[in-house]
């Protein structure tokens, strides 16, 4: 007998005694995967082009998130580098001046922004309670001559005697200047470590004379070496009393008496709020304006970090939109190609149905195919995104930080896209009538 000769003993007829169909197996998942994968590989170029949208979308999102996270980390480093318990008093609309505080030029600024006067700085330092110090940082650029060398374009920063305290900086050799020296407009200078080395090599700079612009200064100290923080070379600056700075360089770079930012350091974290209130009421009182409508801002580092965070959050939500749009576009591409595929393979679908594929088997085959397309795209995009982020960081001179959450998110999103946009074509395929489908050429 034919059947017996080809039928292994374990097979047996699949007819059930009671005529029930319940225990009939459908398609197993591994089988569905195989069939779906065959579908993907059927037309490799087309599959690749289809997934390109997803690849680009996912890669772009990961890279952009890494770049924005890198920029954010850079900003936070700079801000926290300013020191602890620091309060910044700024004219309104000069918020961006925070970053440039070290090198900002006085000179009023554009758009009629109000600035502070040196008198106001002194007023605050005399009248505030619970403070560790008050300073300002007014910069100009001058040529400096000392020893046998001349340096051009050195950043000269006018500060108060509280500067070291306010910024948590350390002196390396000698000493910083005193309030008395500042009040008496003594021409003394404290050199950044790099400047000291450039001008005097290893010879002791303390007590030496330097010429800044056209004025002679006596070197009384050298700052401890700091290195480069953010974009600022702190070792390449010279600190002089603010009173001298306004007097000597007022016309050339400091913009007369105009102060762009006042830095106040509170004694401790607990008194921060009280100090901020004092600043607000003292300044408003002196300016004779309504304290509820001040023309200046009092902020902490935390405020600035928060403000940056909200900017970053806005940027991120923009990115999320871009990501969403690119994934939707990629998904539409997948849906399009799946619809084409269902049309092209109508006869195959009919055949599979005739051979026993249930509607749900057909649906699963095409749904899995769509999900595989989008997942392969997501995975490729993920690798390209990670590699791109690292490459940007290494070659582009741009700081990048991979956002760990973006990886599973990108992967999950591409899977979701596959399911969402694969569902309709898969359902279309499942609903085909086998007779019609087999008749199709």
């Amino acid at each position, binding site marked *: 007998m034919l*059947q017996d000769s080809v039928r292994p003993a374990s097979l047996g007829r699949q007819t059930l005694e009671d005529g029930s169909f319940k225990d009939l197996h459908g398609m197993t998942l591994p089988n569905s995967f195989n069939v779906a994968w065959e579908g993907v590989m059927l037309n490799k170029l087309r599959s690749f082009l289809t997934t390109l949208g997803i690849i680009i979308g996912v890669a772009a999102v990961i890279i952009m998130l890494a770049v924005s996270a890198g920029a954010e980390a850079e900003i936070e480093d700079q801000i926290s580098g300013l020191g602890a318990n620091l309060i910044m008093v700024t004219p309104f609309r000069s918020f961006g001046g925070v970053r440039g505080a070290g090198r900002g030029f006085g000179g009023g600024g554009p758009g009629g922004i109000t600035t502070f006067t040196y008198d106001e700085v002194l007023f605050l330092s005399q009248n505030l309670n619970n403070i560790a110090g008050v300073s300002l940082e007014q910069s100009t650029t001058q040529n400096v001559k000392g020893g046998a060398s001349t340096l051009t374009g050195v950043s000269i920063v006018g500060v108060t005697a509280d500067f070291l305290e306010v910024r948590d900086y350390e002196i390396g050799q000698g000493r910083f200047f005193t309030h008395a020296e500042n009040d008496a407009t003594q021409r003394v200078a404290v050199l950044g470590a790099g400047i000291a080395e450039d001008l005097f090599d290893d010879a002791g700079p303390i007590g030496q004379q330097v010429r800044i612009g056209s004025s002679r200064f006596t070197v009384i100290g050298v700052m401890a070496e700091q290195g480069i923080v953010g974009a600022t070379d702190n070792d390449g600056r010279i600190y002089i009393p603010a009173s001298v700075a306004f007097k000597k360089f007022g016309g050339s770079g400091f913009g007369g008496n105009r102060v762009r930012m006042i830095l106040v350091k509170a004694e401790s974290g607990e008194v921060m709020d009280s100090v901020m209130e004092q600043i607000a009421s003292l300044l408003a009182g002196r300016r004779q304006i309504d304290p509820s409508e001040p023309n200046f801002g009092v902020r902490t580092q935390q405020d600035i970090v928060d403000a940056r965070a909200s900017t970053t959050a806005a940027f991120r939500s923009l990115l999320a939109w871009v990501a969403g749009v690119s994934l939707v576009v990629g998904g539409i591409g997948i849906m399009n190609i799946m619809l084409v595929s269902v049309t092209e393979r109508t006869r195959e679908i009919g055949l599979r149905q*005739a051979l026993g594929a249930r509607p749900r088997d057909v649906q699963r085959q095409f749904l899995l195919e769509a999900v595989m397309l989008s997942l392969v795209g997501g995975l490729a995009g993920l690798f390209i995104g990670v590699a791109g982020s690292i490459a940007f960081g290494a070659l582009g001179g741009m700081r990048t930080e991979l956002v760990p959450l973006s990886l599973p998110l990108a992967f999950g999103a591409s899977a979701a896209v596959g399911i969402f946009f694969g569902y309709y074509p898969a359902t279309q395929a499942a609903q085909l009538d086998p007779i019609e489908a*087999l008749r199709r050429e």
Partner: protein
Amino acid sequence: MSDLVIDITKMTKTYGEGDIAVHALKELDLQVERGEFVAIMGPSGSGKSTLMNIIGCLDRATSGLYILDGEDVSRLIRDQLASVRNRKIGFVFQSYNLLPRLSARKNVMLPMMYNGFQNWSEEQRRERASELLNLVGLGDRLHHLPTELSGGQQQRVAIARALINDPSLILADEPTGNLDTRSSTEIMEIFHSLHAQGATIVMVTHEQERAHEAQRVVNVLDGRVVAPQSRIDRLVSA
């Protein structure tokens, strides 16, 4: 008591409703016993194709009873029909319907994908498919793609595929319609051999010559079976 593979009673199939209703089958009766080789003939529009689709569980009758191999399949839903097709029916189509990207053996294995054969190891399933290809004389063509095979060879792959799930009924729709005489003869020889070994075969054809190779010819005309004749009757009357 006779052992019927197909037992169709008062089957009607109506397309459309009211004045435009088309009655493709009109209370048709048909019985096929186990081990029979039956040819179904009829001009186009006779209801022959409709009958074949219903026998093949690709479609359902409007009314009437259809017992296939002891199971009432008259009122099954799509999923159940798919399962019946998979277990009980081996289809052979006029245009072979092989998947072009799969090897001969993988094409033969295709129906196993949708049933309990999945419990078999891949090795066992391959073995069975190879045996069947051997049986139809293609033991040396296991890994050929359909495009690398002649029409007759492709149809033999299709027959092996029809046998893979050990069906109660082989349903062939114009199996020699696309083939030259020599290939047709080869295919018919395979059917005769299967029949000799106990298979039940229903073949739809419009070729008198091929039809009369069957044990019995059923003529469908205007939605009914007319004057079923046995081969013996025909030979006697001739």
